[in-house]
């Protein structure tokens, strides 16, 4: 089965290469709405206001990165016009803004729009209109459905990918483990749990207890007590920051010391670990895919040097400690890479084709060894993460880069 899939993939690559070469030979210029000899219009939708406005840092970093590209001469001589609108994280507003971008501003594509329900609201529209909805900024796994939605593609590792990596780690390091899972009762938690079970495969029975909590609950204490009582010796906490901190605290209080794994969304040192307590957080595991701007180990790193220079020159007001800035930088870099690959064929179809043929692309702010790969049947650009362990007052990366693909 894998062999067949591999062959099909090779054929596709060959096909893509052939078409890329032939279009270069012909060197004919082809444009869809939003592209011309001088300009490429890119649309974007961000929650600049409203409950999720903390993520606006991503949009600002992306804009700054495109300014940098323009200042350096643009992409094949074409300047990027980045049109970014506010949807206040409200799906009806996202629909309005997406329609404005596509029908009124006439953008070539929409890039990096943020949020799960907001992007769900426009996915059908974008696919009906055949306008690329590229590099969606959301961890849901639903952006990787190329058959049904050939115009929508994710970017960051999905929650499922991350969970599969934990499953791999546990099967390798602790094959006899009894796993207790605490998960948030929503799409985030359920996506994650599914990933965990898929990753464990036939060994899903290692999970001895699954405890769900709702965000409306004030605390997760009783769930932690139940998990301890189940005899679990690995505690996976699929929780958002406040609950993660509560979980770590409660486990220590009831003298339960399992191997603890927390999700990547809750790894903020200031927001989670410090409130829970440094002492009791030693040895907690998680995974990451971006370089942490607050970690001095990257000061000498070439990619991060470029990133810091970029910030100094084009976005001096940005907070380099904000993970959103490094995220936006890397996503914008991926977008630019795709547009460079498009050459003079700036049709929406070709944009999707090129986006689906990224090979080993490594943006500056991703961890060394993490590479972006896509294929016509794989719309999940980042599928690798590296495990990390909390030590002292910061996270330490360890082990190899792990791929989340099943059966590897």
């Amino acid at each position, binding site marked *: 089965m894998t062999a067949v899939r591999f062959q099909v993939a090779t054929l596709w690559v060959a096909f893509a290469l052939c078409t890329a070469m032939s279009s270069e030979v012909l060197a004919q210029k082809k444009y869809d709405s939003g592209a011309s000899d001088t300009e490429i219009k890119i649309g974007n939708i961000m929650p*600049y*206001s*409203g*409950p999720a406005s903390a993520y*606006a840092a991503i949009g600002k970093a992306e804009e700054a990165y495109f300014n940098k590209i323009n200042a350096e001469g643009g992409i094949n001589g074409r300047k990027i016009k980045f049109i*970014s*609108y*506010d949807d*206040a*994280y*409200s*799906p*009806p507003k996202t*629909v*309005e803004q997406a*329609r*404005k971008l*596509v*029908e*009124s501003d006439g953008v070539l594509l929409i890039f990096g729009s943020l949020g*799960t*329900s*907001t992007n*769900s*609201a*426009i*996915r*059908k*529209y974008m696919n009906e209109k055949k306008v690329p909805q590229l590099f969606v900024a959301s961890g849901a796994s*639903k952006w990787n459905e190329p058959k049904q939605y050939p115009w929508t593609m994710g970017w960051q590792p999905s929650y499922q990918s991350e969970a599969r990596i934990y499953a791999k780690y546990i099967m390798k390091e602790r094959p006899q483990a009894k796993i207790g899972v605490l998960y948030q*009762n*929503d*799409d985030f938690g359920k996506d994650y749990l599914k990933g965990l079970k898929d990753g464990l495969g036939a060994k899903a029975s290692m999970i001895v207890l699954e405890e769900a909590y709702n965000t*409306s609950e004030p605390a997760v204490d009783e769930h932690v007590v139940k998990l301890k009582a189940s005899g679990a010796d690995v505690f996976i906490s699929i929780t958002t920051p406040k609950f993660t901190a509560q979980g770590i605290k409660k486990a220590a209080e009831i003298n339960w010391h399992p191997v603890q794994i927390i999700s990547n969304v809750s790894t903020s040192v200031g927001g989670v670990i410090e409130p829970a307590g440094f002492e009791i957080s030693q040895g907690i595991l998680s995974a990451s895919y971006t370089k942490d701007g607050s970690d001095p180990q990257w000061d000498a790193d070439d990619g991060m040097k470029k990133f810091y220079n970029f910030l100094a020159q084009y976005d001096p007001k940005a907070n380099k400690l904000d993970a959103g800035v490094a995220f936006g930088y890397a996503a914008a870099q991926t977008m630019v890479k795709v547009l460079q690959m498009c050459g003079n064929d700036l049709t929406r179809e070709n944009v999707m084709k090129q986006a689906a043929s990224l090979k080993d692309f490594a943006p500056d702010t991703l961890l060394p060894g993490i590479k972006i790969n896509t294929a016509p049947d794989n719309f999940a650009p980042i599928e690798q993460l590296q495990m990390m362990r909390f030590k002292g007052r910061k996270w330490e990366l360890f082990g190899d880069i792990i791929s989340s693909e099943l059966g590897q």
Partner: protein
Amino acid sequence: MSAAEEVVAEGHEAVEAVPKRAMTLGTGTSLLVLAALLIVPVFVKNFIIFQMTMLLIYGLAVLALNILTGGSGQFSLGQSAFYAVGAYTSAVLMEHANINYALTIPISAAVCFAFGYLFGKPALRLSGVYLALATFALATAMPQLLKLNFLEHWTGGVQGLVVTKPDAPFGLPMSQDMWLYYFTLVVTVAIYIFSVNLLRSRSGRAFMAIRDNEIAASSMGVNVALYKTLAFGVSAGITGVAGSLGAIAVQFVAPDSYTITLAISLFLGMVVGGVGWLPGSFVGAAFIIFVPNMAESISKGLSGAVFGVLLFLVIYLVPHGARQAAILGQQLAGKLRKN
């Protein structure tokens, strides 16, 4: 002029006339506006048609609140909950039961009427700010309720539901957007006429009597409890229709779409449009749809603050909203004519 009407229409002689004129536009103006609404879509892009559809939909929702607050004098910050119920009723019926979109609208209206009527029963004991608080609680609870596990099979939980947009029937040569616009326009005009007539009827007079003075109204034989809950029911029913149309136009429902922000926007729309002046509802809707876009084009990072400043200006310069602007315009026109 009664005591409480003074509160609503403080210092405006023009409003003193007959309540009919205070509530609606003249026939000539109404027909002119209607003609504009009918013709404009032929000449503009689909995106503008979509925005106009949203304008009518939010206008309906503001109108519903206007009947409640401007008519019967009760406050509600919970309109987003009724809007959500309407939207979900349509979405679930269309996607799970394959019921025609047009049929889901009266069903939504009925469901929301019942919901509003029942909610109005206990809320009867509350008045003023306490009622506002109770409805506020309803609006905050609604997104959570939609995520409930046992409803998830129908509501799609946090993921929401994608709704299919209807094509124009009978092979009419128009886009989906244009068809939906005219469909919405017909529903809106029908509800508008219904509302105007409701407020002019016996029930409408009872609403206003309660608004002006509850004790006086009950001593005149108005069944205060019945009419208060009825106002809630009618308001919720119309909001439900708006919600249904909104779900069809946006093609998506999710709990995130119906947060307290929506309820506050609708309330804002009512104040900007002029409390108790029905045509103002649509001016208010235009304010809540277009002003955030304008604010954004002035400053992206501070769009909220710019919006706030614009709102301040409106409240200070024309405290009675569009109604006051319209009256000023009318007086000006009258003076010019005399000269």
